[in-house]
C-alpha cells in the first residue's frame, strides 16, 4: 500500500453522521476526511481503553511475543 502522509478515506457512514461531519468540517474550515479521521481515532482510543479488550491484547502480545518477532517480514 502507498505510504503517503495522508490519503482519502472512503467510509460507509450513515447519512446523519455524514451530515454531522460535513457540518463540523464546514464550521472548522477543514476537510470532511480530516474530521472523519479524527472521529475514527477517537473511537479507536475508546476501544483501546476498553479493559477487557486491552487486557486480552496485552496477554496475547506478551504470550506470542517471541513467535511474532520471528515471523518473516512482508514489508
Amino acid at each position, binding site marked *: 500500500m502507498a*505510504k503517503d502522509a495522508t490519503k482519502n478515506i472512503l467510509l460507509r457512514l450513515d447519512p446523519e453522521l455524514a451530515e454531522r461531519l460535513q457540518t463540523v468540517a464546514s464550521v472548522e474550515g477543514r476537510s470532511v476526511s480530516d474530521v472523519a479521521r479524527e472521529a*475514527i481515532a477517537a473511537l*479507536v482510543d475508546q*476501544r*483501546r481503553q476498553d479493559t477487557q479488550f486491552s487486557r*486480552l491484547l496485552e496477554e496475547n502480545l506478551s504470550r*506470542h511475543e517471541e513467535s511474532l518477532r520471528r*515471523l*518473516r*517480514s512482508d514489508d
Partner: protein
Amino acid sequence: MRYLGPYDVLAVAARVLRCSSADAVLRTDLNAVERVLDSVRLTSGLAESAGVMLAGLVRSRPFDAANRVVAVAVVLQFVSLNRAELQLEPVADVDELLDRIAAGEASYREAGVFIRSRLEHRPVKPEDLQDDLRLELLLSEETLTFDVEQEWWRGVRMYEQFSDPARRVIVLAQEEARGFDHAYVGTEHLLLGLITEGQSIAARVLNAVGITAPAVKDLVVEIIGRGNGAAEGSIPFTPRAKSTFEYAWGESKARGAEQVRPEHLLLGVLNDRDGVGGQIITKLAADIDQVRRKLEERMTWRERSESLVTGMLAEGASWTTYGRRHHLIHELTALLDENERLHEQVANLRDLLRRHEIDPDS
C-alpha cells in the same frame, strides 16, 4: 460469535505498531480492512472466520508496516475474544502458510483448516456465560416487544441474580450439550445440568423420583439424537431455555428469594412440559405434578429453616461478632442440609413401607 469492527482492528494495529490511534488511522487502508471484515461476517465457524480474516489481511496488506505481524495479532485478538487460543508454534509453518496466501497459492479455506488445527478452546466459565446470556437476551429484546418492567429486568439484570450453584448448572448444561455434539443448549441439557450439579434441592428431588443422568441421557439420544458438532466457544441457548431462565427469575421474585437458585430453574423446566426437558421428566417420573409438589415441599422446608436461622441471628446480633456469625451461618447451613437429607430418608422409608402394604403411621 464476537466479530471485530474496524476500530478493533485499528486498536490492535496501533498497539503493535506502537503509534497513536490517529497515526494508525493514517497508516491503515480502512477500505481494505472493511472489505476483509465484511467477508468475515459472512462466515460462521470461528476457524473459518479467522481463516478468512488472516487470508484477507495478508493479501490486501492494509497496514503500511509489519503487515504480517499486525494481521496475525488481529487474528489472535479475534480468536481470544471468542474464548479460544491460537498456537503459533512452530512459527515456520505459519510463515509458510502466509507466504502461500500472499502468493495466491493458499485459499482462505486452507487458512481456516490450518487455524482449526492450531485452535484450542478455553473452557466456558460462569462469567463468560454472563456476558453471552446478557447479549443473547438483549438481542431477543430487539426483536420482541415487552412492557417496560420486563425490559428492565431482562438480560442485563437476570443472570447477575443467579446464585453460584445456578451458574454451575448452566455451565454443566453447556458441557452436556457439547457432549452430545449439540449446537444449542436446551431444557434437556439444563435438566442434566441440574442432576449433575448434585448438591441442590433440585438435584435431590430429581434423584428421589428416580430421574438420573444415565436415564435422561438415553432419552435425549432417543428424542433428539446426537448432533453434528457443537459450536465453538460457548453454545447458544434455545428460546425455550431462555424462557426457562425467565420463568425461574419470576419464581424467585414471587417467592421473595434474593437469588435464582437451581430449584427455580427446575420449576422452569417443569413448567415447560412441551420442552424436551419436560417431556423427559414426564416419561421418567410418570407424574410431573408430583415432581413439582415434591420440589415445592422441599423448598418450603428450606425457606422455613432459613427464616428461622435469620431470626436467630438477628436476635443474637448484639452478642455475636461478624466472624462468629459467619461461622454460625456455615454451621447452620450444614445442619439444614443434614436435616433435608434425613427428611428424604424418612420419606423414602415411608414409601418403602407403603409399597409393602405397611401403614407408616401405625
